[in-house]
């Protein structure tokens, strides 16, 4: 920790998250991954939206941006396109990313822009006192679902793979060592990378659903998570009620900012060497 402590704004700590909240563990894993890669802190921009998870950049000593609800990826796209040499990291929550920012999320994934998204999934809107989110599992309770949530939840890994993200992984606050490795790989992936970090919310999700202490919630992660490599040789009955962790998808594809600047360079060259005539676009000119 001491070598990664320099990436924190120490005068802002201790943070405001509840005792036992997993968001601190996820933030710690990100910082350790950055420290391991020895990235320059002046070349990193951390962007967040609104919510418990989005408090994280306030404690990190990078260039940080705390934006409007769900629009972290929209702001991050702007930053990345104007300064492609920067490493852009988005820290977002389940409500922020999949509900109000769902459209920004799928289109950022579709473009394959080089942004690392860390989604802290605590299955609920914690900051605003426990409304159910698109990632609250069916049947679980929330302030706005007092008799149980009837909606089905997103499988974020499948959603992001379908939308076109080139690196997709999932881990939990319990599997913090794995989480650190996956974040490290996501940071190295040139393209849109998503790391879903399941995190416990003992205050709202835990109390509403009587899940016990933060330790009990982490033990639940331990008992119900199956690594995708182990799941490949397991029978479907054994996988009943479990969820997968590990690297879900990794297939590099052309990255958006590189493609865009190549296109812009090509167009500029064509116009700079314009000698008169039809400019090869006669069908479009009026």
């Amino acid at each position, binding site marked *: *920790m*001491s*070598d990664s*402590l320099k990436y*924190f*704004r*120490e*005068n802002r*700590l*201790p*943070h405001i*998250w*509840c*005792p*036992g*909240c*997993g*968001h*601190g*563990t996820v933030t*710690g*894993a990100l910082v*350790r991954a950055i420290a391991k890669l020895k990235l320059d802190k002046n070349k990193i921009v951390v962007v967040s939206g609104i919510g418990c998870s989005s408090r994280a950049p306030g404690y990190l000593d990078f260039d940080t941006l705390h934006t409007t609800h769900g629009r972290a990826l929209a702001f991050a796209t702007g930053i990345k396109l104007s300064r492609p040499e920067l490493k852009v990291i988005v820290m977002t929550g389940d409500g922020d990313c999949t509900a109000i920012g769902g459209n920004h999320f799928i289109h950022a994934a579709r473009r394959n822009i080089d942004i690392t998204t860390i989604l802290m999934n605590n299955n609920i809107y914690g900051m605003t006192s426990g409304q159910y989110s698109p990632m609250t599992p069916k049947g679980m309770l929330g302030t706005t679902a007092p008799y149980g949530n009837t909606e089905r939840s997103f499988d974020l890994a499948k959603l992001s793979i379908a939308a076109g993200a080139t690196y997709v992984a999932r881990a939990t*606050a*319990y599997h*913090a*060592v794995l989480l*650190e490795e996956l974040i490290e790989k996501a940071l190295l992936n040139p393209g849109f990378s998503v790391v879903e970090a399941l995190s416990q919310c003992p205050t709202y999700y835990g109390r509403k659903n009587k899940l016990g*202490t*933060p*330790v009990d919630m*982490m033990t639940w992660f331990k008992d119900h998570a199956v690594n995708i490599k182990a799941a490949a040789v397991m029978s479907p009955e054994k996988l009943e009620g479990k969820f997968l962790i590990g690297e879900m998808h990794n297939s590099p594809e052309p990255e958006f900012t590189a493609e865009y600047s190549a296109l812009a360079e090509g167009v500029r060259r064509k116009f700079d060497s314009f000698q008169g005539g039809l400019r090869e676009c006669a069908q479009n000119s009026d």
Partner: protein
Amino acid sequence: MSEQKKSFEHIVRERWCKGCNICVAFCPKQVLALRNGKVYAAHPELCIGCRLCEIRCPDFAIEIHEKGVQKPESQDASDVDHTIPPEAKHA
């Protein structure tokens, strides 16, 4: 015994610790315990230095150092005077 047993020291930033019990519960050797809502090393001699407490701590409050290994001198955050605003240093 071919090599000498390693020993570790536990640095706890009490101001940051919220006593959530995560490090205590998941320590494989039951080294840690809570006292007045803050963690402390009850059996430091049992520590194997796996650093799982350090990695899982949501509050960055505990740190493991191997004894006898020269570590770069780092400022302990719990000793910093937080009443001085950070802007004052950039005068």
